[in-house]
């Protein structure tokens, strides 16, 4: 496998008016890697992806994508990258087949019919090839868009929330497909709000208010967050939760089924605050595993404080 990075960008800055939407973001993605791009709404994921595929010019920073300079070789980057937009951006007044033919011709894939036919078959849309794209359901639009952007066999896939609104089975198939493509050397940067999808990535990057807060394998990110989690089991958990609210060291209380996850960044303080609960009859407190979601919620709470 090629070891030169597929994406290598340094200190990207993008401002809209006075608002800095991407704030000194650096990112390295190795060839063949699947990187998840996470962050709350409006954190700058779409903007960063657009900069990487040459659709926005950064105000500061530089970098290369697939070995091409971000600022000067946008056209070459476009030819080798597949970009799936967050909002459906194929032609709703063209049929499924016509949309795919359009893409195939623009990338000069030959013969057009063969490429389109194969893609339709893989999608299972052969029988609906003459249906207008605008009349597809949301999930099918996503699948059509994905199929269209991998048709020209790009070396790098930039996917902006590709599975929003897609059913679980299709989601599973989609991720299986992504992993299969990655094994053949395709690099993928995919933004998502789903934790289970983040966990299927080799690495994740977490962005908040335009700043990259964490980057690494899922367990690394979880470990680096330095959070301690206790699982509380027993009766009257609602009352327990109410009691714990606001105690020193208790930063998150989240009910999970019949248990309560209590999370904090200061292990000692958290333990002290839970001591009297643990002594209670019918209630047990045991150390638990911090999940990625706990970490993200912690990030979100933290960065909101930064903004205020």
């Amino acid at each position, binding site marked *: 496998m090629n070891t030169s990075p597929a994406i290598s960008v340094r200190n990207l800055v993008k401002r809209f008016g006075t608002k800095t939407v991407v704030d000194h973001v650096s990112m390295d993605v190795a060839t063949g890697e699947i990187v998840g791009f996470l962050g709350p709404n409006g954190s700058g994921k779409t903007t960063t992806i657009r900069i990487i595929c040459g659709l926005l*010019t950064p105000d500061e920073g530089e970098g290369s994508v697939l070995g091409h300079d971000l600022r000067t070789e946008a056209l070459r980057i476009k030819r080798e990258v597949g970009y799936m937009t967050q909002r459906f951006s194929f032609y709703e007044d063209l049929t499924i087949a016509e949309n795919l033919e359009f893409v195939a011709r*623009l990338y000069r894939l030959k013969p057009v019919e063969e490429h389109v036919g194969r893609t339709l078959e893989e999608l299972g849309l052969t029988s609906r090839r003459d249906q207008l794209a605008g009349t597809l359901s949301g999930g099918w639009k996503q699948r059509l868009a994905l199929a269209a952007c991998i048709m020209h066999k790009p070396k790098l896939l930039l996917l902006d929330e590709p599975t929003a609104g897609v059913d679980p089975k299709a989601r599973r198939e989609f991720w299986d497909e992504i992993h299969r493509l990655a094994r053949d050397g395709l690099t993928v940067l995919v933004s998502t709000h789903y934790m289970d999808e983040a966990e299927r990535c080799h690495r994740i990057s977490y962005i908040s208010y335009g700043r990259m807060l964490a980057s690494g394998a899922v367990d690394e990110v979880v470990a680096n967050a330095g959070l301690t989690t206790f699982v509380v089991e027993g009766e009257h958990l609602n009352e327990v939760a109410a009691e714990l609210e606001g105690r020193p060291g208790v930063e998150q209380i989240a009910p999970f089924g019949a248990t309560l996850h209590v999370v904090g960044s200061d292990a000692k303080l958290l333990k002290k605050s839970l001591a009297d609960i643990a002594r209670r009859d019918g209630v047990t407190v045991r150390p638990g595993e911090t999940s990625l979601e706990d970490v993200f919620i912690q990030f979100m709470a933290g960065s909101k404080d930064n903004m205020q």
Partner: protein
Amino acid sequence: MNAVFSFGRLGALLIKEFIQMRRDRITFAMMLGVPLVQLVLFGYAINNDPKALPAALVVTSQDQYTRAMVSALETTGYYRFVRVAASEAEAESLMARGEVSFVVTIPSDFRRRVDRGDNPRILIEADATDPSAAGNAIATLGTVASQALLREQGMEAVAAENAAGQLQVVVHRRYNPEGISQYNIVPGLLGVILQMTLVMMTSIALTRETERGTMENLLAMPASPTEIMLGKVLPYLVVGGVQVAVVLAAARLLFSVPFVGSLWLLVGAIFVFVMALVLLGYTISTVARTQMQALQLTFFFFLPSILLSGFMFPYRGMPGWAQALGEILPLTHFLRVTRAVMLKGADFAEIAAEIAALSVFAVVFAGLALMRFRRTLD
């Protein structure tokens, strides 16, 4: 693989555009319907030879000459006397209110002057706000009136020459002293129709993609600005061609506009004009952010084009600054070409300067559009 231009990619864009055009039934119908409706409405309103126009008569005596004159005017079919006004002032207000198109005044000394052979006069005031409507009515007037007078005097038509010269018909065109000749209208209409529909449709070419969100995808794919521009304007060149055929055929069949020049010369000039128009529209679409802005900009160009090109008012009659403004409008040059070729049978040498001007417009608009085109979303 050529980065700047590929026929394959242009083909992709063209096919897509044609499919969209075909699916958008209303727009498609508009492309063909608007020129026809406009031509028929404008053409008939302006070019028809209206008869039985309401007229008022101001007479002070009831002698035989006056009666002969009135019945002669009525038999032309153009005049329908609806009122006999007692005074000049009353007739004046009738015309101001639009109740009559003509006021015919036969002075009280008419009979005396006829008898004395002393240049008898009648006065015709015409409402010339719609000059072509009054045109024929006025044109027939002189002869009809003289003949009627001669008949009444019992003179033979052969010996009429001198006496006919005696009758003076004084015509006052009111409200619009410059009359426009009718045949000018239809060739002019061709230019106006093309300008309106083509600029409007191409001006929303890019803004529509932006508003539908498809621009992001289009820009992410490897199409160059030149390909995108041609992919957008060439389909409308075809639309323009169809419109031209429709208008020219209608001009011939419905209005019998004379066509004395070379058809191929005209087609060549139209091609250059249409190219300039679609590129103007496309340039607008690189500037406008929304479809609404695009339409506003289109009208910003459309109004001066109609007013200053010589379509509405005779070009030579405009003040110098207005003529200078008119020179920088494609429609001005196109009107000169069509009128010269269709009505006067001009050859290439005579219109070469105008065609050159139109080509300059096309090149300048294409350059501007390519300069303005944003390859990115910022």
